[in-house]
């Protein structure tokens, strides 16, 4: 793995909860992992999204190869199809929900301005 920083994303995104218009109508929890390390859960509730500390229940798990990729996902800047083709990430569990969330974030993410470790922007 290129970067397995174990810092919780929930810490980095503390207080960040906002509108994600592409997630309207979607409710679910996606665990966020870099390699074997769980860094938090993206909680989606009908157009709102926030990252909370890791813990059950989760509907789907996104496993990616680096923290940078995870940040890209949260900011809605990555194309999930390209990630899958390059084996940079994969989904386990409710994969339909997972694709909906990843695609939905591309339409607008509350984490676009979030400082992840102060070096992600």
């Amino acid at each position, binding site marked *: 793995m290129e970067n397995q920083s174990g810092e919780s994303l929930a810490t980095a995104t503390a207080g960040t909860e906002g509108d994600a218009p592409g997630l309207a109508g979607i409710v679910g929890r996606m665990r966020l992992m870099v390699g074997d390390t769980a860094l938090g859960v993206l909680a989606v509730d009908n157009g709102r999204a926030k990252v909370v500390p890791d813990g059950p229940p989760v509907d789907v798990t996104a496993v990616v190869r680096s923290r940078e990729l995870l940040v890209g996902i949260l900011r809605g800047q990555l194309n999930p199809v390209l990630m899958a083709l390059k084996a940079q990430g994969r989904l386990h569990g409710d*994969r339909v929900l997972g694709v909906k969330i990843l695609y939905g974030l591309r339409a607008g993410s509350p984490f676009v301005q979030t400082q992840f470790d102060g070096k992600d922007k």
Partner: protein
Amino acid sequence: MSLNTVSILDGNAFVVSDRRGDIDASPVDAQGLFLDDTRFLSRWILTVNGLRPSVLSVDEQEYFQVQFFEAVTTGTIYVDSHLSVARKRAVGKGFHEEILLENHDKEAIDLEVKLDAGCDFADLFEVKDKLAKTGQLYTKTTNDRLTLGYKREDFVRETYISASQKADISEDGLHFHVHLPPRTSWTVSLDVQASARATGDVPMRSKANVDAWVAAAPRLVCSWEPLQQIYRRSLVDMAALRFRTGITPGALPAAGLPWFMAVFGRDSLITSFQAMPFAPELAASTLRTLALFQGRVEDPFRDEEPGKILHELRLGEMTAFEQRPQSPYYGAADSTMLFLIVLEEYVRWTGDRALAQELEREARAAVAWIDRYGDRDHDGFVEYKRGNDQTGLDNQCWKDSWNSIAFADGTIAPLPRATCELQGYVYDAKLRTARLAREVWNDPVWAKQLETQAVELKQRFNQEFWIPERNFFALALDGQKRKVDSLTSNIGHLLWSGIADDDKAASCVKHLMSDALFSGWGIRTMANSENSYNPIGYHVGTVWPHDNSFIAWGLRQAGYRAEAARISRAMLEAANLFGGRLPEAFGGYPRSDTHYPVEYPTACSPQAWATGAPLLLIRTLLGLESDGTHLIVDPAIPEPLGRIELLDIPGTWGRMDAFGRARASQ
């Protein structure tokens, strides 16, 4: 596909070989093992004592399985061969092959059996366009396995080859030393496995699976025997083309072998529509999958816009590295309307209101795309112009070759182009969505708005697309709002959408049935009176079975029973002469010149919407329709086709039967 090749397929995995079973890929022949738009084996050549066996026969038992019978011959007719070879191959996530050698001689023989193996890991686009690779090829050998690999950054694809018998494994293949006593045989099983499927594992196809699929479809009983064969061929080919994404449940139709074994919005939707009375579950899978990848952002490279339904999703290297935009690509101006049309059709046939509830948000986004992005210049018509000038599609209607939208004098129409059938689809989509809004989503206000918009569109269309001096609708309005005045099959699509005024529809029907458009085998894509006409031009003169199936169905919808029956009969007769399987397209030569339809050189076969064409033609002949509760049967069958019975048609009614017989007047 070349007549000298043999293809077996299962979803988007397929093997194309020569008639010996060998694979020797070249720029001329697209042979190989393909999966996820990547070639996983480009060389697979069997030799026995340095000789390549001669083919005796090929038994294409099932679409996913084939057997080659061969002999190791001496090269002279005066000496009999004493060594026969049988190769049995089945495709899955790779392929499995059994080779049987039989010594018919009274003497023992020693054989050096070799399988040369190699792979170029070409992206299907590289095969099609003859492009060079960028990454590194490698091979690895162990005692029991040969690995062929390719790596470009994170993109890794591998092929694993193993055998049931001890072999010398080298970087270029497997070598067996075989001693065969008199009148004995030797067998080896070979597994060729392709790695790195991007979308999850899919189980291998079995005969039981295919039999179950065919058995679940309505049963056809008919007096014209060829129709029985055509119907079964369509069902089996449809089974072969079922594609599982590994994400959404169920299977949807891939577009066609060999170049289009992928999710295509337009193709999957049209095929699902054709198959509605026979296998409505295809529509549900198609709608769910396309909804999942519905456009979210403005992305000119992919021609993506919010609410737009995709055109094509590819899984190969060139897509992964954005050398091609198919991740997915959204360059289709019609797929969004077809999505709405198929959704309403599906709900009306099956009564599955839950799917409509599930996809309400996507349907609303699709309508919003039509009005905001589809109508680029807000003149009230949907038009297209690609955002990606390098690798995007110039034409984003079903006739997507570069020269398909031309004036009668042959001049290519400037962009953006608003083709006539797109407007018909918008009209139909809005009326159908209005029904869903009223009956499922409980939104009568929106329903009324959509109906009003449809009526206004119909009025504008009949004024601005009509060419009074030629008495048909323009093929398109070009970028300068000029009427593109070629006579084409596109006007046939206006009948099933219902956008044409009755008097104008009548005039179009005369043109459709004229010698200029109707070849005797079917309606040509372009009339032979136009300057661009070419009987073997992809979209400017050939006959496309799916096009004809929709024109025939539109004729029935508009009340032209005899004309619909005439086209249906001609197309089914053509299918019979193609051995029951209609190709993607065939030549537009007049039937009076040839007693058989002339093949189009590079047509895909099987191709999904050509496979679906006989199904929609049977629906047309029987006049099958659903009013949401009952199955309506109103046959119009021409005399030579005699009697047709379609039993156990699924729908909101459970299962029902339809009967029809020819009458002298039809």
